[in-house]
């Protein structure tokens, strides 16, 4: 579906004015390559300014790269703009595609004409999305009067009415409460499974990634740092698991052979370990009487933070 080869994009910003003007260049994307097969959901992660949105702008045809090859469903986005965008949907959390002052249903009707969607197909999609996203209560409300969650649901419907093969989602759950996030994630899972829509998801919300994507791409400083399974990411770069122990009585020396002591207060201690938990637990209980203990899994957030901070890899293991 998406083929990206050696993509590069440099921005030149002018500094100063007139005669004193200088130029500063910024390499937003440096030699990025990846392939996304049809029907996959891929999480595209990276800190602000890492090159995520530049990549997405190139893939959607908004931006022309300096070099490299991009093919989306056989088309080069910036060369064949209208045919390309007819086959994709995009939801950018920060802004809406809806007509601000018009009732949602009118925007959806206008999009039928913009995308030349056959009436029957449009009607069928509208009723499916109205059910799944519960659009009913606000179909006749102007977009400007919607809550953030309602607007996001309406925007999702708007992006999918024309049966796109590919969906770009940028921060689809930002600023939403847990229930609203769940509804949107369920919907994305649904359209991916039922309609084989390929989804490229850029987000800061790792909950989105854990729930939706099996595969992640991580970019920083314009370079792709990781491309692979979420599970492999955890295994390869995950922080160690943590064992939180509460002792029955204060322990003067909490050191246990074979375990790294992370933190120690008189009645409790935290250890780091890798692998199965049985052996570390046996060691700790042998060391001192234990009242309670918990094993805490490394979270993806910490893993990715560590990758960004570059303490694990810099010039990219693929």
């Amino acid at each position: 579906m998406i083929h990206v080869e050696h993509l590069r994009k440099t921005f030149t910003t002018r500094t100063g004015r007139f005669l004193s003007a200088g130029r500063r260049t910024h390499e937003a994307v440096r030699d990025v390559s990846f392939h996304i097969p049809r029907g996959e959901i891929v999480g595209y992660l990276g800190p602000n300014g890492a090159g995520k949105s530049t990549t997405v702008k190139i893939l959607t045809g908004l931006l022309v790269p300096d070099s490299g090859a991009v093919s989306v469903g056989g088309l080069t986005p910036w060369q064949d703009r209208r045919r390309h965008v007819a086959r994709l949907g995009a939801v950018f959390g920060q802004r809406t595609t809806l007509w601000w002052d018009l009732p949602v249903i009118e925007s959806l009707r206008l999009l039928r004409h913009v995308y030349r969607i056959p009436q029957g197909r449009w009607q069928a999609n509208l009723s499916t999305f109205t059910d799944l996203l519960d659009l009913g209560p606000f179909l006749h409300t102007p977009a400007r009067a919607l809550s953030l969650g309602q607007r996001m649901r309406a925007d999702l419907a708007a992006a999918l009415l024309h049966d796109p093969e590919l969906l770009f989602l940028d921060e689809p759950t930002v600023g939403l409460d847990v229930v609203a996030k769940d509804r949107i994630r369920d919907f994305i899972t649904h359209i991916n499974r039922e309609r084989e829509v390929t989804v490229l998801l850029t987000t800061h919300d790792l909950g989105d990634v854990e729930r939706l994507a099996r595969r992640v791409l991580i970019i920083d400083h314009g370079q792709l740092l990781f491309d692979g399974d979420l599970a492999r990411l955890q295994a390869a770069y995950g922080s160690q698991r943590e064992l939180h122990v509460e002792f029955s009585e204060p322990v003067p020396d909490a050191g246990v052979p074979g375990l790294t002591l992370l933190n120690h207060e008189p009645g409790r201690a935290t250890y780091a370990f890798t692998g199965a938990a049985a052996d570390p637990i046996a060691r700790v209980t042998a060391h001192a009487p234990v009242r309670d203990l918990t094993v805490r899994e490394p979270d993806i957030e910490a893993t990715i933070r560590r990758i960004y901070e570059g303490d694990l890899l810099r010039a990219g293991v693929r």
Partner: protein
Amino acid sequence: MADVRHHLTLYLRLLGAQIRSQGAHRTSFILDALGSLLITAAEFAALALVLPRFGGLGGWTLGEICLLYGLAELAFVLMDILFGGFDAPNLSAHVRSGSFSTFLLRPAPLTLQVFASDFALRRIPRVLLAAAIAGYGLLHAPLAAGPETAALLTAAVLGMICFFGGLFVIGGTLTFWTVDSVEAMNVLTYGGRTLISYPMDIYSAWLRRTFTYLIPAAFLSYLPALHLLGRPLPDGLPGWAALIGPLAGPLVLAGAFAFWRVGVRHYQGTGT
């Protein structure tokens, strides 16, 4: 052909959406309409009250001046309604808010969407006023009634719409690079409009020549008006120059759209 029809109906649908959106802000709409009507009315009233005291302007009667003034105003206001989406403040707002990117993400021609992105219905009262002024001019200027007069006056209005539309497109395109240039462009657009609202022989020769040969504004309505009123053309220009004069408008517009395409490519290169 089916494509053309689809695009035309899409344009009208998008315009309809734009107009219904304006209905959401009814009070500001009415105030805007009244304000812009008052400005034109006051501007013209000053002229109409002062002029008879001097028995005309540079040998032009009130009726003849009304003809020039009314046609220029009519064309400009119609242009303003049609080309509003390209007006620099509107276009740069679209670029900044991201709605320009939204246009690029839709499978419809970009220019069609920009054309349909603004339609200042609030200017309709000004159209009526301008038509009334031009109508007064038609009745009181010594014109030969006939198909040639009708054709040339219509061509003059269409030419001016294209010409000022072209200036709007150029001004809007410049905002892809910088918004600082907008003021300079306004001098040309609004200055040009004011200039050709009056007989150009009242200006000094260098100003008239600049707006004849450098910026072909005089060709649009001034030369055709001279011809229809049986007056000689300036600088010994041949009579046919007045007949083809209005073509300067479409030429400027074509150039402006060529520049527009360069601007869009620049936008896609920098993604500002």
